[in-house]
């Protein structure tokens, strides 16, 4: 029955054992894809006509920004699953996703700022995308701060899930408003990532790195969730076995 499957998926122990087998493959895939993609992008992709070599930052900036946003939605969706079905595993995924998303947002912001220096001549420009990223970082920090501040884990889980959901409703509005604000205050300057027509010689390395980042994200999320589960389920026999055997 469908419910049984759902129930089993929600079992921390089943999750822990099942994902243990996936981890090495994910780690391998992400390492290979990231290394190959980076070398490809750094050394073999052609120089950009307008921006010169500084555009090579795109190969870390764009994937990080991609996953930072996707990670927020993932966090909110798992929080919603936790709130609706009171599933402990979903809350664990949500809690693990917050710091990972925050780090990715930081990467996107940092590389964007560095990229701005040779492109615009300034590290920080109130560009629509960078500003949206900054707000996304604050949203992540809000969830993390709330989870730190609330003493009881279960209350913190549900409070963070609600906050993540509220944030999700707001993200499109925030993005639209920041976009509008940017066009109001500044004539369209050179955008960092012009989506219009990217040459295949630049697109394929970018795609490689993006897939690599996805694998890396999945691997990191799984390892973080697994340690979180160990901490939360420390009173169960299986966790104590895992902890004493796997030294």
């Amino acid at each position, binding site marked *: 029955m469908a419910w049984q499957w759902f*129930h089993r998926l*929600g*079992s*921390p*122990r089943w999750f822990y054992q099942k994902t243990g087998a996936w981890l090495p493959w994910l780690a391998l895939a992400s390492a290979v894809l990231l290394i190959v993609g980076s070398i490809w992008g750094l050394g073999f992709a052609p120089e950009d006509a307008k921006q010169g070599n500084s555009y090579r930052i795109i190969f870390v900036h764009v994937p990080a920004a991609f996953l930072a946003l996707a990670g927020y939605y993932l966090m909110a969706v798992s929080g919603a699953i936790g709130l609706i*079905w*009171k*599933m*402990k*595993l979903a*809350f664990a995924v949500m809690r693990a996703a917050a710091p990972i998303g925050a780090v990715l947002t930081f990467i996107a912001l940092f590389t964007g700022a560095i990229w701005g220096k040779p492109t615009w001549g300034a590290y920080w420009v109130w560009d629509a995308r960078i500003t949206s990223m900054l707000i996304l970082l604050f949203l992540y920090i809000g969830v993390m701060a709330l989870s730190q501040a609330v003493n*009881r*884990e*279960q209350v913190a*889980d549900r409070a963070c899930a609600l906050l993540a959901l509220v944030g999700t409703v707001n993200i499109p509005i925030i993005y639209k408003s920041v976009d509008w604000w940017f066009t109001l205050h500044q004539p369209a300057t050179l955008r960092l990532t012009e989506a219009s027509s990217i040459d295949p010689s630049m697109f394929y390395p970018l795609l490689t790195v993006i897939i690599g980042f996805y694998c890396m994200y999945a691997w990191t999320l799984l390892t973080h969730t697994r340690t979180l589960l160990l901490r*939360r*389920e420390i*009173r*169960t*026999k*299986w966790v*104590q076995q895992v902890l004493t055997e796997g030294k």
Partner: protein
Amino acid sequence: MPVTPKFPVVLQVRDLACDRDGRRLFEGLDFSLCTGTAIQIKGSNGAGKTTLLRTLIGTASDFRGEILWCGSPFPGALPVLRESLLYIGHQGGVRDSLTPLENLIWYGATRESALWALDCVDLSGFEGSLCHGLSAGENRRVALARLFLPQAPSLWILDEPFTALDAVGVATLEQQMAAHLHSGGSILLTSHQPLSLGRLASVDLSDFMVDEPLVAMEAEHVFS
């Protein structure tokens, strides 16, 4: 038509276990509350008396087992239960920037009935002064005045109602409880002191305590 019993069951608790911060407070708790009866919950500090009450009013949701209100299970039955519930917790629910009268009106009382209830708890003359000027015992009596309002709901859940009350206050409250039971209401309360009520049962949470709260659990729970 079958013979209707005199004291039908309103609230049923079956094999209830409550957790707090991952620590099991008690388990295997069973009792039924009938109309016209009172149950006194006993237990040492930290045994989970307040948690039990908060579970029964639906504020705390971390429980396993079954709770039934008039035969229908929690949490679906909660909205109906709340229609006949009067709960007074550790914090009395009295706002100190309001007068006793305004506090009772906030609870839905009319002016006349509020004044009458305040008179019952010996607070007549104080109805117009702000609650932060009153003593702890007087504030407690403002909270308890809700029990003296006409048309009080049928289920009373009271957490340590006698704290901060003087001997006269305790006697008045016991009288009112007896009258409530007599008119077919039911009371669930926690208290350390012995009560002189007619139909009184008691449940000691120490009997349902878990021996070793730190011991490893065999079963795992998917849903929190």
